[in-house]
């Protein structure tokens, strides 16, 4: 079973809100000091799912990311978890690409790799929270799409997916090849093993440029973007917290009850 996992490097979503800085002038996020970027957590879960499927059905796991040469860190992370090979898609002309262009770049790379049974993406990226790349990629490749997967079972060419919905779940079935977006219910991604780290360190991560995957220049970069970012702001915090104190936590609890009655909350 050949699996391609699309991953993305994002600022650590666990950054405490107090450390989150925005440069509104430049309309961008300032990288928080001392907190390195990470593999998008949902993408790490997609890698985890790929590894579990490979353990059952054998095969090969290829990891792809659109980024810069610095993205080697997240690709190596996936390799150290157990992925077989990784490629970085990087080119100056990719700068400013929107989700349509990113999906297009990934499409071209996936077509170059060819011979895949399953493509996995995280359900959304922790930076722009769009959840567009996976569905757009499925449209481009004309393969069935299954989103918000909580569990995936493969038997031969048939795949069963449990998709999370607000009121419960749906069970869907498709014939491979297909594209699945992975949700957090898949479970914790494994930590890289010592051997994994050593073998990942030895692997080369080739960089493919625009020419390597023959992309149309008109389809990529800021010029192709279908919308513009007008503003990037900090969220308004309209509330001021009144801290209720007491001699003991129990007394504070009682006073909180009183205060809520006083102010008409209850």
């Amino acid at each position, binding site marked *: 079973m050949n699996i391609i996992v699309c991953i993305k490097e994002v600022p650590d*979503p666990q950054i*405490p*809100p*107090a450390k*989150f800085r925005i440069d509104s002038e430049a309309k961008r*996020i300032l990288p928080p000091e001392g907190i390195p970027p990470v593999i998008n957590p949902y993408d790490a879960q997609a890698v985890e799912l790929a590894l579990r499927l490979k353990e059952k059905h054998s095969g090969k796991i290829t990891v792809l990311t659109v980024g810069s040469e610095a993205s080697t860190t997240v690709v190596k992370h996936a390799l150290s978890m157990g992925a077989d090979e990784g490629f970085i898609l990087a080119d100056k002309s990719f700068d400013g690409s929107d989700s349509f262009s990113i999906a297009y770049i990934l499409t071209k790379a996936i077509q170059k790799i060819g011979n895949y049974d399953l493509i996995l993406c995280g359900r959304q990226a922790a*930076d*722009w*929270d*769009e959840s*567009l790349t996976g*569905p*757009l990629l*499925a*449209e481009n490749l004309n393969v069935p*799409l299954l*989103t*918000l997967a909580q569990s995936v079972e493969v038997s031969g060419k048939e795949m069963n997916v449990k998709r*999370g919905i*607000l*009121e*419960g*779940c*749906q*069970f*869907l079935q*498709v*014939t491979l090849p*297909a594209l699945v977006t992975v*949700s*957090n*219910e898949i479970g914790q991604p494994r930590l890289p093993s010592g051997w994994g780290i050593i073998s990942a360190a030895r692997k080369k991560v080739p960089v493919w440029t625009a020419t390597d995957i023959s992309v149309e220049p008109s389809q990529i970069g800021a010029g192709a973007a*279908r*919308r*513009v*970012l007008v*503003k*990037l702001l*900090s*969220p308004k915090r309209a*509330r*001021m*917290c009144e*801290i*209720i*104190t007491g001699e*003991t*936590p*129990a*007394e*504070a*609890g*009682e006073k*909180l*009850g*009183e*205060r*809520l009655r006083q102010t008409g*909350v*209850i």
Partner: protein
Amino acid sequence: MMVSNRGVLVCGELVDGSISSTTRELLAVGRKLSNDLGQSLSTLIIGDKIDDQALELISLGADQVYVTEGPKFYDAPSELYVAIISECCKQLTRSIILIGQTDMGREVAPRLAARLGATVTMDCIELTIETQTKRMLLTKPVYGGNAIAVWASESNKPQIVTLRPRSSMPAVPDPTRKGNVTILSISLDFSMIKSRLVKTAKEEIKGLKLEEAKVVICGGGGIGGKEGFKLLEDLAKVLSGTIGVTRVPCDSGWMPISLEIGQTGRIISPDLYIGIGVSGAPQHMAGCSGSKYIVAINRDIEANIFKEADFGVIGEYTKVLPSLIEKFKNLILT
């Protein structure tokens, strides 16, 4: 020749035969956009024998309602609705298409955008028309809610937008409104539908639905385990409220996923939200920041939730709650 796109279209959802609350919110937002643009508002609904619902959509603000045949939402794979809606949109050539950020909308919107060559922006909380330029400004939380982005499109491509549930007030019905209902017939190639829906399993929700509760008691990772929720249930009982959770209790298997509040769960706006052992990560607050009052009980003074709450107690919940419950009991009895 290219047909120029004009007008606003709401893709409506019927839930158990009724117009969903999200559709009502989309109609209110769509009406405002249409008025500001001086264009018409239409609504597309899928179903059979839904004349009453079509008329209700007119009272809720639609100038035209388009009805097309198809199975009930969630009775077929999303893919089928993508096909139906995109065929309808190709006929209707509207410039703005509004969809709810629902289980269906999440999957339909991006694929529709690919098929129509449209722009798409997911999970918006506000849509306005800029007075001078007449372009639509789309406001959307990003970075898990740590930042707010405002997007605009300058191209003449149709724009697809999904709107976060409960980010806007629902449309108020006006039975005197006039409009017309049109049946749209489309031809579909069913061989293109590649996924099969085996079954949909809906979880039975005991008691109040989270979205409808006036009081929500929310437990986070700080509760420490399944047992701790008993105390929260007692509190919910006194206030006739219900229980919600953050992601940690779901991921740890203490509580069902269906109770999750936040970006990846339910969006609520009760009169009173009490967060207990909740750190207040933006991804969670995205689901409850619309609450009228937010109360936080947490032993960690540094917890982000205190920055977003109206009232707070710093302390161990196991010590704070019993006296709070007693106090409420006394207050409610007197």
